[in-house]
């Protein structure tokens, strides 16, 4: 029942063929059936979800649903770094294992206004730091396509839940690829909107100049519906952009012929799996048949994106995570004085990768190293951003793979941070430039999903979604389901 498109579910709800309660019960039933194996959810709010479903059913019956309710009755799962009033929010960290938010994130309020029903909170890499979801303090997530493989990260739970058919869509967050890379590994559709397009108010900050919330769905069409509900300016987030939000469904089915795409040589070069390259080249051919002209280009500074990102993101993280000290909230490990209480709470509360990034960031910002590392990385970021600006003067889109490989094995890269970081080499430049990008399934390599990345101009999610949808009208990889 819940593996239909959002559009179909909306139509069936409107005609009375199904009820919100049936959708919510179907979602909970599916989670109870498979999530013991997959591990996508950290906690469920079954009672709250059923109450909300019944309330919405009454409204639907009385014809009282408002026009803004673009997602009325659709169940959703929320990544656990997005605060939910009265539902524990942990960021998959031991230090926040008892944290009970007093307000909702703006995106959660907007989803409620749009009529969604929150089923529960999704597993992730602790504080969104990781590419495999193995950094969760609670339990691992398994890739629904192959239970010996990682789902990707950091929004691994968000991607696996959609792939496993547990909920029709989820919210994730993307700082260096954390929506797109797991979407690629799990064979689902993941959109990172333009920086500032979606409010970050209530998203527990990792790297504030890069973080962005976005939808993980089965299709680009579903993604457009979710974006309609969550995009737009928010006075509570001073970095949120005051830019008009278009009707994302309006040009979804418009003709894509005449659009121009750039394919960076670096994105199909050394270090990219042959299977990934083949699938992406086939996808480019499908788009070419649709009338999209493409040309090979270069993003010369993209090879510096990885070190730039790790310096900048870790520096921002070291400042953002200073608030977790065991004083006002979170778990305290008391010692006999204040400083040692901070140290003990933080050392016992944070996992290894989080501590590693706090240490790297603190070092890069410390006296004597600030100019050599932090400021240098900010300057290289400018050059990386200019690479994109130049290409977008001549092209509407940039196309390539989302990740250099398909999902790797659980435990395989855990001991080698630099190898782990390299999984995000094709997604990180997009965050540094702040542009929007989507990952859509484009086939399989050794029975594991491959993701096609479509990158657009600042605030042009509409074209990204249009092209992704045009591709999905010609292919059926996004409707493929794993055997669970």
């Amino acid at each position, binding site marked *: 029942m819940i593996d239909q498109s959002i559009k179909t579910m909306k139509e069936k709800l409107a005609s009375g063929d199904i009820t919100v309660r049936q959708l919510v019960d179907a979602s909970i039933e599916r989670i109870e059936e498979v999530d013991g194996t997959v591990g996508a959810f950290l906690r469920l709010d079954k009672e709250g979800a059923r109450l909300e479903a019944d309330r919405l059913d009454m409204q639907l019956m009385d014809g009282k649903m408002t026009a803004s309710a673009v997602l009325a009755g659709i169940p959703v799962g929320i990544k656990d770094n997005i605060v939910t009033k009265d539902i524990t929010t942990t960021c998959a960290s031991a230090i926040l294992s008892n944290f009970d938010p*007093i307000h909702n994130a703006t995106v959660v309020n907007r989803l409620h206004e749009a009529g969604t029903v929150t089923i529960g909170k999704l597993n992730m890499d602790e504080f969104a730091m990781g590419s495999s979801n193995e950094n969760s303090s609670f339990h691992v997530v398994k890739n629904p396509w192959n239970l010996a493989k990682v789902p990707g990260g950091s929004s691994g739970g968000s991607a696996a839940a959609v792939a496993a058919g547990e909920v029709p869509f989820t919210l994730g967050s993307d700082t260096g690829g954390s929506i797109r890379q797991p979407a690629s590994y799990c064979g689902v559709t993941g959109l990172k909107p333009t920086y500032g397009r979606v409010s970050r108010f209530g998203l527990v900050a990792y790297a504030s100049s890069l973080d962005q919330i976005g939808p993980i769905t089965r299709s680009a069409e579903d993604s457009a519906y979710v974006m309609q509900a969550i995009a737009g300016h928010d006075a509570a987030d001073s970095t949120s952009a005051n830019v008009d939000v278009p009707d994302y469904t309006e040009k979804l089915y418009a003709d894509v012929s005449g659009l121009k795409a750039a394919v960076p040589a670096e994105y199909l070069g050394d270090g990219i799996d042959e299977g990934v390259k083949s699938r992406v080249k086939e996808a480019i051919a499908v788009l070419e048949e649709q009338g999209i002209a493409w040309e090979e280009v270069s993003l010369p500074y993209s090879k510096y994106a990885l070190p730039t990102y790790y310096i900048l993101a870790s520096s921002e993280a070291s400042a953002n995570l200073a608030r977790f000290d065991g004083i006002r909230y979170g778990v305290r490990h008391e010692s006999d004085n204040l400083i040692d209480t901070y140290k*003990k709470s*933080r050392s016992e509360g944070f996992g290894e990768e989080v501590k590693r990034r706090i*240490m790297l960031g603190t070092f890069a910002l410390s006296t004597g190293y600030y100019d*050599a590392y932090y400021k240098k990385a900010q300057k290289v970021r400018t050059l990386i951003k200019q690479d994109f600006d130049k290409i977008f003067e001549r092209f509407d889109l940039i196309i390539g793979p989302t990740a250099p490989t398909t999902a790797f094995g659980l435990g395989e890269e855990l001991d080698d941070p630099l190898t782990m970081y390299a999984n995000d080499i094709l997604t990180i430049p997009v965050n540094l430039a702040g542009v929007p990008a989507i990952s859509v399934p484009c086939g399989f390599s050794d029975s594991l999903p491959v993701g096609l990345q479509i990158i657009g101009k600042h605030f042009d999610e509409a074209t990204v979604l249009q092209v992704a949808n045009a591709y999905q009208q010609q292919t059926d990889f996004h409707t493929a389901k794993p055997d669970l």
Partner: protein
Amino acid sequence: MSRITKEQIEHVAHLARLSFTDEELNEFTDTLGQIIEFAEQLNEVDTDGVEPTSHATEVHNVLREDETKPSPARENSMRNAPDQENGQYKVPSVLE
């Protein structure tokens, strides 16, 4: 630029309000050294005259009217406090 020493790691750990065992300090000295060495490839890039980017989109000095709005109730703000007394956060002694 030289790689990071164990003494530097200890200093950075104090700044970050983290404590490590001796074994952990040795491990961090190794892995952070590797990551920093990796980051030093940025030195190949000529950035003379390049402005640093701190945000991807141009947003400057966002101002709003200074209007009074209700604050969260004290019991809400305090409800996650690990330790409290008389509606105030309680901490271990600050001074010896």
